[in-house]
């Protein structure tokens, strides 16, 4: 039971850390904006630079690094193991610290390994491929809004500090465009290695990513029609309302577009090239497009995979899970909690600016929590399902997801034509969710459950 308390405390600490991170982000963006404004360069430039530093370096890269060790620890928990716990920090050799020192050990290992280039490789393209793989994936995160824009007081006026690097009108189209660029890195890596198996992996990756890009787009078309926008922050805004005219049931994309969610999640999962879609890697037979890479170049491929996981989580959170919103009632409760916290902490007249900042910090932390939960879901999927056969991958993409996506687009359009208030669409979505849940419960009630617990649980 002690572990239960410890883990609960750890969860609280993580939430508090995310709040602190969001607060630091807002402060830094505000400070950088005002500093560059004083320099005469315009506040937006400083804000963008600060957002890049805080989101890419301090959130995405740290989270990706932690996910590397989390994958090892969480997969161990799923498989009834302990996982890596032998790397210790000097002076703290009695504590395994949840395996986190293995981050340092892994990084040291990768940096100090031989940087090997095969004799048959095309040197230039071989060196270029990891960069061409990682760069677009890092760019993808630019449009994910990690928190609401908040007005920050300022000597020269009011700045809207937003935890979002770029907010183009094209929004999701930017996502599709950059995501399709990631194919080049993989295909180049496979071809430039001068190795048949790597080439096979590269070809598999290219054809798989091309196949699933169609479903990726179609999965989001439904949400574009529902919210009438391509911008992620506007999508989040439109999900803050209640469904069916209530104030407690959130109009999340998950509830109005469950099929779209499934399509996008499956397709984006295939784009990340992880199990059950890890045919391009296929470590048991062809090792895949990064077969010839060693050291930090391989590390870049691995890092790209984890950054992709975070980006996918961020996009799904923004588009389907309501971003930083819960439901209207809970949002109001959070806002009043923030206001009362500010009133309790800073005695004096009510300060709407401080209350808005506090609320924004809470909401940014909420967004981060949703992102982390989705990261966990992806890791759990990766450690649950076996790999598809290659014909199954293509059949799933072209013969299942693509028609399903088209049907979903037409059904969404029909529902929106009949009832533009999302009521009909929400009812349809809830019916679909109920169908899946019912089928799951029904199919799980059929076969006699194995008496695992009765046999001692091991």
């Amino acid at each position, binding site marked *: 039971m002690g572990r239960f308390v410890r883990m609960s405390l750890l969860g609280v600490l993580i939430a508090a850390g995310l709040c602190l991170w969001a607060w630091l982000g807002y402060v830094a963006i505000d400070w950088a904006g005002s500093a560059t404004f004083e320099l005469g360069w315009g506040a937006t430039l400083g804000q963008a630079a600060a957002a890049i530093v805080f989101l890419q370096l301090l959130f995405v890269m740290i989270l990706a690094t932690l996910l590397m060790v989390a994958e090892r620890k969480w997969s161990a*928990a*799923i498989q009834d193991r302990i996982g890596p716990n032998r790397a210790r920090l000097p002076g703290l050799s009695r504590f395994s610290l949840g395996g986190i020192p293995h981050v340092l050990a892994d990084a040291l290992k990768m940096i100090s390994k031989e940087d090997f280039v095969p004799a048959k490789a095309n040197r230039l393209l071989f060196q270029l491929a990891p960069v061409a793989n990682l760069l677009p994936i890092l760019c993808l995160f630019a449009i994910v809004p990690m928190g609401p824009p908040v007005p920050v007081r300022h000597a020269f006026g009011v700045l809207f500090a937003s935890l979002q690097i770029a907010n183009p009108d094209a929004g999701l189209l930017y996502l599709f465009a950059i995501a399709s660029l990631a194919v080049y890195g993989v295909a180049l890596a496979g071809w430039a290695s001068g190795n048949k198996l790597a080439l096979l992996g590269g070809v598999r990756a290219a054809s798989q990513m091309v196949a699933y890009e169609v479903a990726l787009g179609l999965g989001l078309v439904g949400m574009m029609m529902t919210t009438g926008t391509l911008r992620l922050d506007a999508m989040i805004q439109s999900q803050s309302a209640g469904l069916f005219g209530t104030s407690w049931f959130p109009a999340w994309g998950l509830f109005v577009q469950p099929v779209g969610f499934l399509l996008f999640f499956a397709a984006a999962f295939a784009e990340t090239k992880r199990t059950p879609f890890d045919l391009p890697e296929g470590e048991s037979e062809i090792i895949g497009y990064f077969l010839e890479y060693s050291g930090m170049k391989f590390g870049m491929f691995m890092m790209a995979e984890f950054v992709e996981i975070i980006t996918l989580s961020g996009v799904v959170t923004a588009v389907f899970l309501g971003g930083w919103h819960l439901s209207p009632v809970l949002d109001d409760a959070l806002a009043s909690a923030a206001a009362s916290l500010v009133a309790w902490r800073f005695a004096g007249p009510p300060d709407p600016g401080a209350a808005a900042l506090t609320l924004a910090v809470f909401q940014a932390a909420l967004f981060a929590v949703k992102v982390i939960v989705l990261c966990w879901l992806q890791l*759990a999927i990766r450690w*649950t399902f076996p790999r598809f056969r290659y014909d199954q991958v293509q059949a799933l993409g072209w013969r299942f997801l693509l028609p399903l996506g088209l049907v979903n687009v037409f059904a969404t359009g029909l529902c929106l034509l009949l009832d533009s208030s999302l009521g009909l669409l929400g009812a349809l979505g809830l019916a679909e969710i109920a169908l899946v849940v019912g*089928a*799951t419960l029904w*199919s799980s009630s059929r076969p006699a459950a194995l008496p695992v617990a009765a046999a001692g649980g091991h």
Partner: protein
Amino acid sequence: MADEPKPRAIAAYRAPESRPENLAEYSYVPEALRGLAVSTGHFLRNLLFSRDPSPDVIHRRGPNQVTTVQYPEEIAPYPPGYRSMHRLVPRPDGKPRCVACYLCATICPAQCIYIEAGEYEGDPIEKYPKRFEIDELRCIVCGFCVEACPKDAIRMDTGTHTKPTYDRPAIIYGIDRLLKGPAVSHQTDVWFKRETSAPPEEAHAHPIPRSPGDEPPG
């Protein structure tokens, strides 16, 4: 016209013929969710509850299902009858039961036992080992020496194995390191019948001839 058997398709691999039973199974989603539920159950149980560190994995208690034994800290006992590292069995007076008959050295397929026999003054019958060394690197732990010994003087019941070391001479175990464990005596032991067979004290007083590097551990 007899039906000719259809020629089988020539393929290296034939996919299993089992088809999904119903639409729910065909759609893959409910079964996938059930699989995820199993993973999540294991994850939460192992994350939230502490592990019973008992090395007896089968009988660990609690909701945590981890079966790992953290080896150097937790050591699972070997089952009885397991052939572990040798020991020279002492007599009740602390001297080895061994009579240097060379049977173990003879039968040893790895030829890892080296014995130098010594004779008691004035006793033409009984011998004792002046040196008894086992090269643990060569030993294949077959247990033939235990079977061959007519005096129950060598056993493999210590429940440990040879400690790893960085130099080869240190892994040649002499009497000082092999002679350990509980003493054994049988009703048929000769020293119950003949006073003269007691080995002289000085035969096992220091220094016992040792091979270089054969220091006791620690």
